[in-house]
C-alpha cells in the first residue's frame, strides 16, 4: 500500500492530453464497460476510424461541442499499488488559473509536449508554474512520437531544450523524467513499445507508480481552528474543543501552546481524532484540541506550539497568480484567507509581473487575469506566515474579491 498521489497534467491545445489520460484509464482497466461502450459509439458517430479516448475526460457539453477542455477535471486511477488523483487542467494560454488550480496540491506534474513542435511557449509557462508551486516531480511526456517516426534525435533534442531552459524558482529541487510516447497508439504508456528500440527508460505507468509524496518539514506545530465544539460531559459541564486541521508539525498532550492572535499561553489538556481520544496527532490530521486554560478562541484563531519560530506580521510580500477579470491594483481591498483565517487586506504595492517566458519581472502597475506578479499587502490583523518555499501550508493564501466574493487570486509568500 502506498500514499495517495496527486498528479496534475498540463499541455497545449491538441497535444493530446485528454487522449493520454483516456489511454491510461483504458490500459489500466479503469474504464467501466458502459463508459467504454459510450466512447466507442461516439467515436463511430464522429467517423474518426479509431477509438477517441479523449472523450473519456471531456466532460461538459460545451466542451464536447467545441472539442476542447475548459475546466479542471478530476480523474481517479487505481492500480494494484496505489491511488492516483489526476487533475486534468486545460492548456490554453488564458487558462493559467486552471493549471494553478489543478496543480496546487500536486505531488507530480505530467507535462505533455507535441514531438513535432518541441518546447512551445506554453511548455515554458507550464514548467514555470510547476516550479512556482513547488511540484517536486515533473514527468515530461513527449507525445505524438509516431508522427516523427519515433526519431531518437528529435527526442534527445527536446529533452536537452527542457534541461537547458531554466533553474527552478524558489530553490525547490524537482525530480525530472523524460519519456517518448504515442498516446494515440498506446506506445510506452503501459506496455513497452517495439517502436522505441533506443529507449531504455521505463514506461509511463511505471514512472507513475514510483512517484512519492513530500511534506514540508516543520518543527512548529500549527492548528487552524475551524469550529469550536461545545460538548457536555456526563456531569453537564460544557467543554470547549477546538476543531481543526494540523497545518504542520505534531501536537501531543501536555504540550505548551500559544494562541494567535493575542499571544495567550496554555497547554494541551486532551486530544481527539475522528471520534477517539489520542495522545499524538500529526500534520494533515483533523483533530480536536482541549486546552487547560480558558482563552478566547474562535474560528480563525491559530494554536501554535510554544516556543515556535513563526513571526506575526501585518505585511506580506508574495507572488500572486491573478484569476479574476477585474485587475489587481494598488489600493485594492480584499479578503485574504490564510488557513481558515479570513481578514481584510489592502494592496500596498504592485512590484511587477513575471514574464513567464523569460522569468523576468516586468514593471507594471496592475495584474490582469492569468498574470503572475509580485505584490505587497498591508493586513488588517496579524498573520503567522512562512515563505512558501519553506512551508507550503503557512506560505500560501487566497484573495477573495470584497464585493463579489469570488476567489480572485492565489498567493505564495516570498
Amino acid at each position, binding site marked *: 500500500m502506498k500514499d495517495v498521489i496527486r498528479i496534475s497534467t498540463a499541455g497545449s491545445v491538441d497535444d493530446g492530453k485528454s487522449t493520454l489520460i483516456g489511454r491510461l484509464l483504458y490500459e489500466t482497466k479503469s474504464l*467501466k464497460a458502459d463508459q467504454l461502450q459510450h466512447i466507442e459509439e461516439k467515436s463511430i458517430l464522429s467517423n474518426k476510424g479509431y477509438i477517441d479516448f479523449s472523450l473519456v475526460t471531456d466532460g461538459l*457539453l460545451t466542451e464536447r461541442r467545441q472539442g476542447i477542455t475548459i*475546466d479542471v477535471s478530476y480523474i*481517479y486511477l487505481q492500480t494494484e499499488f496505489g*491511488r492516483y488523483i489526476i487533475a486534468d487542467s486545460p492548456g490554453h494560454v488564458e487558462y493559467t488559473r486552471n493549471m494553478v488550480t489543478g496543480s496546487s*496540491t500536486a505531488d507530480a506534474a505530467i507535462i505533455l509536449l507535441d514531438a513535432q513542435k518541441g518546447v512551445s511557449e506554453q511548455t515554458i509557462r507550464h514548467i514555470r508554474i510547476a516550479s512556482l508551486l513547488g511540484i517536486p516531480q515533473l514527468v515530461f511526456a513527449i507525445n505524438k512520437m509516431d508522427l516523427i517516426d519515433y526519431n531518437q534525435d528529435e527526442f534527445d533534442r527536446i529533452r536537452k531544450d527542457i534541461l537547458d531552459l531554466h533553474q527552478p524558482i524558489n530553490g525547490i529541487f524537482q525530480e525530472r523524467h523524460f519519456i517518448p510516447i504515442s498516446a494515440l497508439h498506446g506506445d510506452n504508456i503501459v506496455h513497452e513499445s517495439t517502436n522505441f528500440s533506443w529507449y531504455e527508460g521505463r514506461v509511463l505507468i511505471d514512472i507513475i507508480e514510483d512517484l512519492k509524496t513530500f511534506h514540508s518539514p516543520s518543527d512548529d506545530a500549527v492548528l487552524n481552528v475551524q469550529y469550536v465544539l461545545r*460538548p457536555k460531559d456526563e456531569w453537564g459541564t460544557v467543554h470547549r474543543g477546538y476543531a481543526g*486541521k494540523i497545518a504542520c508539525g505534531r501536537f501531543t498532550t501536555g504540550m505548551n501552546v500559544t494562541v494567535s492572535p493575542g499571544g495567550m499561553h496554555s497547554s494541551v489538556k486532551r486530544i481527539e481524532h475522528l471520534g477517539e481520544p489520542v495522545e499524538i496527532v500529526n500534520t494533515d490530521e483533523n483533530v480536536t484540541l482541549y486546552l487547560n486554560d480558558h482563552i478566547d478562541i474562535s474560528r480563525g484563531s491559530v494554536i501554535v506550539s510554544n516556543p515556535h519560530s513563526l513571526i506575526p506580521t501585518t505585511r506580506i510580500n508574495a507572488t500572486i497568480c491573478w484569476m479574476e477579470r477585474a485587475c489587481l491594483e494598488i489600493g485594492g481591498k480584499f479578503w485574504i484567507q490564510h488557513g481558515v483565517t479570513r481578514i481584510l487586506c489592502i494592496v500596498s504595492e504592485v512590484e511587477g509581473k513575471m514574464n513567464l517566458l523569460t522569468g523576468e519581472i516586468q514593471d507594471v502597475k496592475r495584474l490582469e487575469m492569468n498574470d503572475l506578479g509580485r505584490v505587497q499587502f498591508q493586513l488588517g490583523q496579524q498573520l503567522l506566515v512562512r515563505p512558501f518555499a519553506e512551508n507550503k501550508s503557512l506560505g500560501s493564501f487566497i484573495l477573495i474579491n470584497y464585493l463579489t466574493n469570488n476567489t480572485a487570486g492565489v498567493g505564495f509568500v516570498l
Partner: protein
Amino acid sequence: MLTKKYLEEQAVYILREVAGQFQRPCLLFSGGKDSIVLLHLSKKAFWPGKIPFPLLHIDTGHNFPETIIHRDYLVKKYDVDLEIAYVQDSIDRGTAIEEKGKDASRNILQTTTLLETIERLKIDACVGGARRDEEKSRAKERVFSVRDIFGQWNEKLQRPEVFDFLNGLIRNKENVRVFPISNWTELDVWEYIRDQHIEIPSIYFAHKRKVYYKNGQWMPVSDLLHISKNEIKTKQVRFRTVGDLSCTAAVLSEANDIDSVIKEIKKSSFSERGARMDDKRSEGALEERKKVGYF
C-alpha cells in the same frame, strides 16, 4: 497518507468548514449509502458534540419503504435533526407538474422542492454525497459549488479551489452545494461502510423482488406503475443506488452481505450511474439538470 485515511480526513475537514462558514447548513439525505456515509462522517467530525446541522430529505413519495424505515432508525441512532420536504406538496401548490407517460419520474421535480425548501428555511449550504467518479460533468464539480439565487450551476463561474482553501462567502439568497466525498469512488464508499460497520438499507443486498424488463434493465414493480401481469418476473436482485423507485434499476445479484457486494462491484464492469434511467435520457442529461438547480 494512505487512500482510506486521506479520504476520511479530507471529508471531515470539509464538513467542519461547512459548520464554520455557514449560518444554516443542511445535509441532503436521500437515505442512500452515500448520504449515510456523510452522516457517519459528520458524527466523527463533531464528536462528542451533536451534529450541528439537520438532515434534509427531499421526499419524492416514490420511496423504497425499506429506506424510510432505515432513515428514521438512523436519525435516532446518530441523534440528528431531520427536515422532510415533500415533492407532492410542490405538485399540490402547482409549482411542480407531474410528468406523464411510461418514463415519467419525479426526479426532476425534486429540484423545485429543494429550491423551495432552501428559500423557506433560508439554507445557505447543502451538503451532498455526489462523487466525481459518478458522471462526466461531476468530474468538474468543485467541493464548494456556488449556486446563484435561482439555484443555477454555471460551470464558467466556478471558483478556483487551490490547496485546501474553501471559499464559502456568498451573497444573500445564494447557496453553496458542498461535496465532502468528491474524491471517493463507489468502491471506497463500500469499503468504508464495511470497515466502519455502517448500517445501510436492506435493498442494497440481494433479495427476491418483483421486477419487469425495460430498456435492457430490470425495474422494480411498485404501485406507482401499471405493469401487465405477464411482464412481471420474480428475480434475485439488489440495488446499487437508491433513487426514485420508478426509475432505479435493479441488478441481478446473489450478493447478500457486504463482502460479497464488494466482490461483485470489483468484478462488475458497469458504472453506478448506468443504473439511473434519468441520466440516459440524453447526452449531458445530468449537466443540464445541474444547471437548473438539481443537486
